[in-house]
């Protein structure tokens, strides 16, 4: 645990994420303003009254960013939960059972890895009768589970032969108990990293869908903000304060998740740690010379 907090990447990543979680949970209490309330001062730049300016219909951009965090991050997390659950089942069952079951599951996983996710999500979302948070999250999850399943399968394959698993097997444990009580907890770090990556992919997918107008356009999310900014010619009138903040939030969350994942990777794979190669190389050379 101490090692984890000593990594600056992990600390920075956690701080960024904590900021956005707090923003989504408590931000609306602080901002107060209704994100959909219009007023007569449209397309005003940042000012004391509207820190991030207003949209074309005079809605407060800051209020939209803060409320939008709830939908964007909500869809992201919900979708990642569904996708991760799927990847755990597919990855662990395939890796543990092996044989034909594994081959079929691996084939399906590889197919979903190669197929381009966004066009598939677009077609699925197009057919949705209503585009609520839950159904959009589910549709995004359909395309987001394959990477996690592949990594977990590989991990399960190496764990399957370990002594403690063999012991549990010899002790007469039922297979589902071995998979979910003995193997699953050990894979927690892998599950965590793939979960974080899936959250980001889902936030990006939601933004893409909304940008196309395929989300519920009456709710405020970062994606719908970008949709309205694009469709109301925010660009041509130079209203940068309208479209810069939502995209910046997405990229910052991504940076936080990325740093966190990178930090975890470095702990898991010491070769990636790059603190002192130059010093080490110099030392090595000195040894050779002397």
């Amino acid at each position, binding site marked *: 645990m101490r090692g984890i907090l000593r990594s600056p990447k992990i600390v920075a990543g956690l701080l960024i994420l904590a900021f956005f979680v707090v923003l989504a949970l408590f931000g609306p209490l602080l901002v107060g303003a209704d994100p959909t309330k219009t007023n007569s001062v449209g397309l005003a730049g940042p000012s004391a009254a509207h820190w991030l300016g207003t949209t074309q219909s005079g809605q407060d951009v800051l209020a939209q960013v803060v409320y939008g965090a709830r939908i964007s991050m909500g869809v992201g997390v919900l979708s990642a939960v569904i996708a991760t659950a799927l990847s755990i089942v597919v990855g662990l069952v395939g890796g543990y059972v092996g044989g034909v079951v594994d081959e079929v599951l691996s084939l399906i996983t590889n197919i979903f890895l190669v*197929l381009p996710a966004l066009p598939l999500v677009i077609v699925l979302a197009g*057919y949705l*009768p209503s585009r609520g948070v839950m159904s959009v999250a589910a549709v995004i999850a359909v395309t987001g589970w394959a990477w996690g399943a592949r990594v977990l399968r590989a991990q399960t394959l190496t764990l399957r032969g370990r002594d403690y698993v063999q012991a549990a097997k010899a002790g007469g444990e039922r297979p589902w108990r071995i998979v979910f009580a003995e193997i699953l907890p050990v894979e927690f770090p892998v599950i965590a990293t793939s979960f974080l990556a899936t959250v980001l992919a889902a936030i990006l997918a939601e933004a893409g869908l909304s940008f196309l107008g395929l989300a519920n356009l009456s709710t405020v999310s970062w994606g719908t903000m970008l949709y309205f900014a694009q469709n109301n010619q925010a660009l041509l009138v130079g209203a940068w304060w309208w479209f810069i903040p939502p995209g910046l939030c997405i990229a910052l969350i991504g940076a936080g998740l990325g740093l966190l994942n990178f930090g975890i990777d470095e702990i898991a794979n010491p070769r990636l740690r790059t603190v002192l*190669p130059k010093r080490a190389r110099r030392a090595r050379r000195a040894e050779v010379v002397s």
Partner: protein
Amino acid sequence: MRYLLRRLGFYLITAWAAITINFLIPRLMPGDPVDLMVARMNGQIDPDAIESMKKSFGLTGGSIWSQYWDYLGNLLHGELGRSITFYPTHVSSVIGGALPWTIGLVGIATIISYLIGTTLGVVAAWRRGTWLDSILPTTTFLQAVPYFWVALALVMVFGVSLSWLPVSGAYSLSVTTGFNGEFVGSVLYHAILPAITIVVASIADRVMGMRNVMVTTLGEDYVTMAEAKGLTSRRVMWRYAARNAILPNITSFSLSLGFVVGGSVLTEIVFSYPGIGSVLLKAVENEDFPLMQGIFLIISLAVLAANLLADIAYVALDPRTRQEA
């Protein structure tokens, strides 16, 4: 050869899966797509259009197996149904008109991004532990940036504020289309900003992918050996480490292609580029399901073809896969 045949087999199965998913989606999603569309148009629709829609969904009556069979037969003849938006134009010709623009733009931008990104990754790995590591937070930021948002920002700065570059369309309307210098120049000029967008949004993955593989490779004994032999740094870096690190990196490159294409398609919308993206936007706006599904199918097949090309490159680079064992 054997490796390539196995990959080819996998892509054929994947193509079949994409085709079958495409067939199943309208049947598995709640509601009948044709009824849905007729209702949305308040009944103001040609009976011919309804008939052709049913045909393009394969809803021709009969058992689901015979529908599936008809659907496969139609596909084999390149028949994807008729577009609702551009009725009575066939979906295949709508997509056919847009596809070259997308392939040209995304293809060239992806190659540029791959070459620059991989080079930067090699250098970043070689100089790990120096100030260059401070690019890490920047790359994680760039990895997460939505393509279309980069497009909006670039249009804002270089198109609107500075007016340096054109921000919409694929060529100037004042030049005569055809293969002449003026037209080609105009096409290239209009492609600059969209291409930069795709490069900026996709390059971080290439840099990080290459850097991480390369850092691992640099720990191998043969690299230490090369250094011990007193070879120049450049030789060790490029001929020993980078050459071997490129291989695993190709796999991650081909897996990221679908993501790049998805992002690029949204980028085209910002630039009103006449590629697949703009057609997709029209399809979404008009609830044109045959067109949407056709686009999904074509993009999937294009990504599979690109993957096959990456595999061929892999075989060309790695002698081990060429062993006839």
